[in-house]
């Protein structure tokens, strides 16, 4: 699923989620905020995208996924030198906060994510993109 830019400041999002319902809702929220997204169904698919040279401004990781978990993927992607991308851990599991922050995520958001929370994060990313030119 390819990303679609809505303009020069539109953030490029990656959603890493294996549960269809959760994926569909988050993608719809992103679309409502004029942000199309690329999808990975587990942590390994996300890592492979970065290995292919794909770049994103913000990545949303579910915690527990087959093949590779969200925290594992965050650790690997940070290890590849991806320091500029905002990494968001998303989970209904209370243990998700510690797991994601220890792995190197920038922020943890409990599921289900509110539209206002998502909007605020995207606005922050847009602001940084505009400042960096």
């Amino acid at each position: 699923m390819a990303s679609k830019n809505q303009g020069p400041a539109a953030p490029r999002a990656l959603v890493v989620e294996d549960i269809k319902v959760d994926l569909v809702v988050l993608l719809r929220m992103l679309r409502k905020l004029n942000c199309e997204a690329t999808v990975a169904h587990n942590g390994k698919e996300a890592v492979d995208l970065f290995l292919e040279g794909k770049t994103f401004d913000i990545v949303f990781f579910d915690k527990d996924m087959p093949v590779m978990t969200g925290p594992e993927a965050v650790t690997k992607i940070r290890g590849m030198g991806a320091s500029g991308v905002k990494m968001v851990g998303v989970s209904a599991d209370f243990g998700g906060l510690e797991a994601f922050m220890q792995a190197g995520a920038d922020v943890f958001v409990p599921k289900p994510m509110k539209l206002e929370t998502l909007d605020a994060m995207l606005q922050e990313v847009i602001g940084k993109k505009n400042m960096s030119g």
Partner: protein
Amino acid sequence: MDYSNLRRQAASMKKSLFDQGYLDEQFCQVEDLQDEASPNFAEEVITLFFKDSARLISNIEQALEKYPKDFNKWDAYMQQLKGSCSSIGASRMKSECMSFREFCGQGNVEGCMKSFQKVKREHGVLRQKLEAYFQLLRQAGPAGAATRPGM
């Protein structure tokens, strides 16, 4: 047909679902994601939820019958189901999922079995109620605009 009356009935039905604790605010968030481009988004997501949740429940049922008892596997399945329940605002189902997970944490087989039956019961009841709600909404919509995804 009195469409405004049907809409009032749908609104009353939805309020009842909230008052009885079947749904929480997240359901409204899902409905709020609808617009002209995606007018049936909520029903599509709910349909997807019931397809996925039926599969998960079947997986859990099979896992519960196996030996040795694998509380980690049971917990992992139920965590997925709980997550999906959260995403659509299925509050009572989510509570039962959490109870099941607590019993898993205690290694309480009997508790897990009883709790799982409650999860199944809540799943069936919610499915019936939401099916009726969306059927009413389709009837209340513009004539000829309704399509019915399989639930």
